[in-house]
């Protein structure tokens, strides 16, 4: 079981991801809607998530920039990208993301990636 921070500008997607993650007994400890809010969450929250599910294209601050800033604050964070923009993959991995899933993803693929991330930690 793991704890999650969901970073995506689509509110409906938050609800869906919370449901999907619950299926495997995971817990969502935070929901934010852009990269800047994610950085602030990691800076201020006492409860750090095991995995951050990060979108790339978001207002205010994109996922790749947020990834760099979060890892500068806490290099132990595991950031897993879920994005529709496949051209962002190499940039995300270069920024320090542990994985990249292309939307739309099947629940089974998400669980596999999560299991792999939690195993690494």
């Amino acid at each position, binding site marked *: 079981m793991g704890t999650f921070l969901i970073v*995506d500008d*689509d509110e*409906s*997607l938050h609800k*869906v*991801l919370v*449901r*999907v993650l619950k*299926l495997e007994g995971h817990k969502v400890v935070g929901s934010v809607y852009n990269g800047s809010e994610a950085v602030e969450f990691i800076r201020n929250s006492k409860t750090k998530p095991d995995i951050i599910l990060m979108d790339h*294209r978001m207002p205010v601050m994109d996922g790749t920039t947020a990834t760099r800033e979060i890892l500068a604050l806490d290099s132990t964070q595991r950031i897993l990208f*879920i994005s*529709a*923009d*496949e*051209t962002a993959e190499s940039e995300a991995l270069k920024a320090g993301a542990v994985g990249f899933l292309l*939307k*739309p*993803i*099947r*629940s*089974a693929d998400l669980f596999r990636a999560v299991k792999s991330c939690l195993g690494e930690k």
Partner: protein
Amino acid sequence: MDPMQIAWHLMEGTNDIITSINKDGTFSYVNRALMEKLHYSESEIDTLSIGTIFFPGEQKKIKAIVTKDTHEIISDVQTIMVTKEGEMLHVEGAFSPFFEGGKKVSTIALFRDISKQKKMEEDLERERNQTEFLIDIMTHDLANIHQEIISMLDFLILNEDLPNETVGIIKEGISEIERATRLISSVRKISIVSKALPDLQCMDISLALLRGAIQARLAFPEKTLKLVTDVEHGEYFVVADEYLVDIFYSLLHNSLKHSKKKDVTI
């Protein structure tokens, strides 16, 4: 006809701007086209200089060319002139140094009006950016919507009480959403291809064919695909980009789609 007269008629009859620029930035000659395009009268010619007819940000560049002691002809220089009323005129020109007694005395410059071409380039760039922006929004938002639908359908499948027929229908629904996603992805790829150079690499044609076949097979879960080929893995390599896989996918997808058989051999 005297060659000097011919030259004079050419210089005064052309629509291109021709000038003789002194080292101090004043003009010893300007042709009719310059006066017409920049809206000056003959009585104003003596008041003209680099400082009056070139855009402020361009004046340093022009001064550097006319003061440079070189025999070299400098061509394909894009710069901006300004009319008497302050409107910009994009021009492309060539500068030819004129020497007397071994000393450079002036620079003969010929400019072609490229304002229309510039405006078309700017309009095209704006349209491209707008199209790319709309495609990006479409890709992003539709991917999120597809994600939500697929996740919901994944939930339904988990219900063990569902009849097999219903599970089959749900799986077909998921497959159709994945097809729609591939279509959106293709539209985006085409927009990228049209503006960027391809990222070419050495590709194993057998592997590209196999990857295309796997994708095409997933699009038709109710059919089987038997692919017969005499191309062996590691046998043929081509220089291509990632769209080679898309080509094979599209060919095989069409074959599967239009074949009435359940077991398709290609």
